[in-house]
């Protein structure tokens, strides 16, 4: 674990750019609302439902490191006992007063209290993610709330971390000049002189290292692959009936006999893919792999990226940020779900079929916001959302079963 932590720190310090701007912000809580010590301890009181503790601890550590990189502060995690700052996940009303009650998915994602209360609360009903665009990125929201526990208020500066609005984890620098000026007004510059700043990309790379390092061989007590403890980003099945489960920067294969592989780096098998994907589908029609993320589509023949790819979803007349994709034999086309609608992609023309998107209600009983879908050899379509699955029967054109996939489906590797 220490080796890994040093590796992560190397990733951060190795991927930093020094900060040139010297603007002065004025955004912190009333004078006096700051910590009068520079070494602060923190504890994670409880955990979000669908993320494993390891990557969550990494995200929280990285969020604190974001601020210690640019100020005179130092943070230390203390697993038990009293600490200066506590992070906890709650649902609805949680003794912070009616106006601070959480409101379920969307709306207020989290809140925190100014020094020296040291509390940051997160809505456990949110779909928290560490990768990709499905859900709200826990690292970004934690970094924002830590800003409040240090005494920073909301910033009017667009794209600053302390802007009141949720910001996705992107490639850009996470802290703006305004964030840095405000924290340095309270706690000064880092002892080493120049502040160093973290990009979203550097965080994602560090998390990728964790996911590769954090698998069962490193922890004999973990007997199942990481995805069994939570959600995954996408799932599909190839021509040999091998199931592939995608999560963050890695994927697992589950053979027809039920043998599960170690986590494998996505980009090693499919070069040019981004760090994480939102939807994946193998097409038995042309034996090609289709990946979707944001506004782009990648298509591979085996591990070779096809000419002309990645291409923009808009070129195919498709929406961006898909929920899931799967080849649907009864239509002879690929089906793509997003929100309350679905599109149909003609794999010969690579264009959306006319008169789509249509409402998801055509698929009686199918829920919105599915993570992934695949068709089993018996022709039945399985759809997944967080811990649940639904089985769709193409003959009856309706759902015929639902349950908890990690327990009920022996072919998923858990």
């Amino acid at each position, binding site marked *: 674990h220490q080796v890994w932590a040093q590796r992560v720190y190397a990733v951060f310090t190795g991927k930093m750019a020094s900060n040139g701007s010297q603007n002065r912000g004025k955004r912190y809580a009333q004078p006096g609302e700051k910590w009068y010590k520079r070494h602060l301890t923190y504890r994670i009181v409880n955990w979000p439902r669908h993320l494993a503790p390891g990557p969550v601890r990494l995200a929280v550590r990285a969020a604190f490191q974001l601020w210690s990189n640019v100020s005179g502060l130092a943070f230390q995690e203390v697993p038990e006992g009293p600490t200066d700052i506590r992070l906890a996940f709650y649902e609805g009303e949680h003794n912070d007063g009616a106006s601070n009650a959480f409101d379920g998915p969307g*709306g207020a994602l989290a809140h925190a209290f100014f020094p020296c209360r040291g509390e940051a609360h997160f809505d456990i009903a949110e779909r928290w993610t560490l990768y990709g665009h499905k859900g709200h990125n826990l690292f970004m929201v934690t970094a924002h709330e830590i800003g409040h526990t240090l005494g920073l208020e909301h910033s*009017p500066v667009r794209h600053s971390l302390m802007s009141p609005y949720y910001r996705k984890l992107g490639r850009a620098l996470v802290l703006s000049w305004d964030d840095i000026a405000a924290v340095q007004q309270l706690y000064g510059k880092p002892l080493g002189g120049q502040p160093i700043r973290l990009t979203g990309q550097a965080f994602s790379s560090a998390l990728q290292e964790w996911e590769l390092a954090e698998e069962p061989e490193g922890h004999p007590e973990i007997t199942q692959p990481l995805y069994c403890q939570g959600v995954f980003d996408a799932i599909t099945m190839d021509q040999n009936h091998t199931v592939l489960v995608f999560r963050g920067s890695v994927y697992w294969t589950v053979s027809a006999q039920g043998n599960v592989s170690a986590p494998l780096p996505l980009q090693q098998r499919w070069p040019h893919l981004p760090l994480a994907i939102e939807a994946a589908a193998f097409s038995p029609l042309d034996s090609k792999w289709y990946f979707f993320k944001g506004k782009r589509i990648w298509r591979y023949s085996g591990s070779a990226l096809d000419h002309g790819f990645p291409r923009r979803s808009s070129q195919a007349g498709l929406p961006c940020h898909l929920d899931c994709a799967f080849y649907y034999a009864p239509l002879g086309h690929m089906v793509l779900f997003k929100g309350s609608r679905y599109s149909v992609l003609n794999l010969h023309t690579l264009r959306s079929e006319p008169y789509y998107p249509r409402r998801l209600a055509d698929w009686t009983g199918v829920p919105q916001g599915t993570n992934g879908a695949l068709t089993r050899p018996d022709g039945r379509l399985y759809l997944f959302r967080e811990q649940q699955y639904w089985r769709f029967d193409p003959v009856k054109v309706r759902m015929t079963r639902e349950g908890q996939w990690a327990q009920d489906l022996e072919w998923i590797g858990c």
Partner: protein
Amino acid sequence: PVSTDGRVETAEAEGFLEKYGYLHQDNHIHNPAEVKTAVREFQWLSHLPVTGQLDGATLKQMGTPRCGVKDEGS
């Protein structure tokens, strides 16, 4: 309460403005001038056209995922 497209309905806008520190919360009664000023401040912080009107873009912004801490003083 937000409509299906995530927008805050006008009736709820004053509750939103109270929650995030743009309107006082005593007795929840506000005159039009107070509301107009509060809307202008919210639009300014949110990089929207500062009209003072509860137009569609403003209502939609109120439904955007965000931090639950007040904006006052920013």
